[in-house]
């Protein structure tokens, strides 16, 4: 199992704990992740708002790099990157004019894109390529008694649901259960966290983060598990502002990959857990399980 790894800007910055946990966990499962050489920003939600032609061409550059590197598949852990790369492929397929434009732009620097390299999310890979049985086999420290609210956010199932149900995704639920955690059922698992609005228009954006945290707490979650660096940032980074405006809703938000690492018996500081603001609760007493 070898994948071209597209980290995206956040996984090198605010979301570096995601990368720090995902790499060892995937390696532990025998998944090879090779970082694409000289990848550039996917464009996220901002570039589309300025120029969709350039947004597509720049995103397609990364797809071309993956092809050039001989990767049959690309792994994009960040939700925005995952969406933008998939969306670019859809746009090129659905609109011949867009395809011609991208071909021309990439051609100007000697790149080519055949547009048939699947761009996949780590959850998809874990469930469908690695398999939950293989994950279970690696669990040495089950997350027994830990109540986790799985939070998928927007962009991995919307608008393209390639590996999970659009309205009621379950892949992370299943993964967390395989780690031994107790999964909280809540209706907000795909609701928006506020995205970049928490920074640009906090009165609107923060409210969405607040609602998520409040509901997770109300339903008894010890923590929220996320798949997206921006969601993690929003749900973790603004507690003082949320408290000032509404009420304390101190529930930690961590990456699913960090929980995997813990369940695999890896030390917390090797999984970037020291980088969160709201500290992870201590795990219930370790019950070592024969590996």
């Amino acid at each position, binding site marked *: 199992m070898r994948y071209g790894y597209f980290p995206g*800007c*956040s996984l*090198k*910055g*605010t979301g*570096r704990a995601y990368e720090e946990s995902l790499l060892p966990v995937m390696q532990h499962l025998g998944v090879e992740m090779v970082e694409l050489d*000289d*990848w*550039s*920003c996917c*464009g*996220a939600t*901002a*570039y*589309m*708002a*300025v*120029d*969709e*032609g*350039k947004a597509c*061409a*720049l995103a397609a*550059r990364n797809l071309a790099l993956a092809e050039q590197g001989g990767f049959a598949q690309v792994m994009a852990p960040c939700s925005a990157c995952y969406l933008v790369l998939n969306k670019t492929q859809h*746009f090129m397929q659905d*609109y011949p*004019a*867009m395809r011609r*434009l991208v071909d*021309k*732009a*990439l*051609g*100007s*620097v000697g*790149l080519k894109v055949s547009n048939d390299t699947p761009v996949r999310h780590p959850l998809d890979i874990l469930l469908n390529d690695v398999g939950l049985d293989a994950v279970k086999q690696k669990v040495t420290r089950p997350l027994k008694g830990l109540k986790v609210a799985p939070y998928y956010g*927007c*962009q991995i199932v*919307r*608008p393209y649901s390639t590996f999970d149900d*659009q309205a009621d995704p379950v892949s992370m639920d299943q993964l967390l259960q395989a780690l031994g955690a107790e999964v909280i059922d809540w209706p907000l698992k795909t*609701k*928006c966290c*506020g*995205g*970049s*609005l928490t*920074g*640009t*228009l906090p*009165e*609107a*954006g923060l409210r*969405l983060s607040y609602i998520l945290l409040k509901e997770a707490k109300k339903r008894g979650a010890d923590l929220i598990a996320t798949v997206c660096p921006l969601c993690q940032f929003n749900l973790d*980074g*603004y507690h*003082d502002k949320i408290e000032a405006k509404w009420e304390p809703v101190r529930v930690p938000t961590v990456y699913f990959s960090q929980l995997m690492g813990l369940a695999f018996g890896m030390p917390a500081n090797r999984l970037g857990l*020291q*980088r969160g*603001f709201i500290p992870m609760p201590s795990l219930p007493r370790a019950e070592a399980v024969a590996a």
Partner: protein
Amino acid sequence: MEIKRTIKYQADRVRGFGREVMSVPGCEKLKDCIQCGTCSGVCPLSIYMDFTPRQVMALTREDFKNEVLASHTIWLCASCYACTVECPREIRITDIMYELKQRAIHEGVYPKRFPIPVLAQEFTTMVRQHGRVSEGLLVTKLYLKTNPIAALGMAKLGMGLMKTGRFSLKQENIKQRADLARIVATVDNESVKA
């Protein structure tokens, strides 16, 4: 009490605007809108909008360009795609919002010091020049350009990020920046919308 004329005359429209938007990839199905309001019903940010997403669809289709491009609605869209997947007419509302944002930026009709369009442009510039986004640098630039005072309120967060090793003012760069520039220049020379 200040009163304002609210009736719309045909001359208030910018004829052809709706048709132009609907000719852009992803925006075609706006033609099929039945004004049911599902988009607004599922939109997490519709509660702050001056026009609901449904109203933006109606105004766009009916050529009310000035009203649409000046609305807050297009900037409040967080790209969560809830409207797009729930629309019973399969209209890609998120993509239409992107298109309207582009036009508003292009025509410079957005509230001054409004951080959202500024962020979009700073982000784009940074990607174009360096190939990657350095979040710390981007956010700092944003606050300086829009609201330096508010930046003070963010200082604590910045410090926290610094402490957890997540904040840096260093600009990340890719190697092939010349390639990037050429790709952008090529797109500039073509026009998808033609």
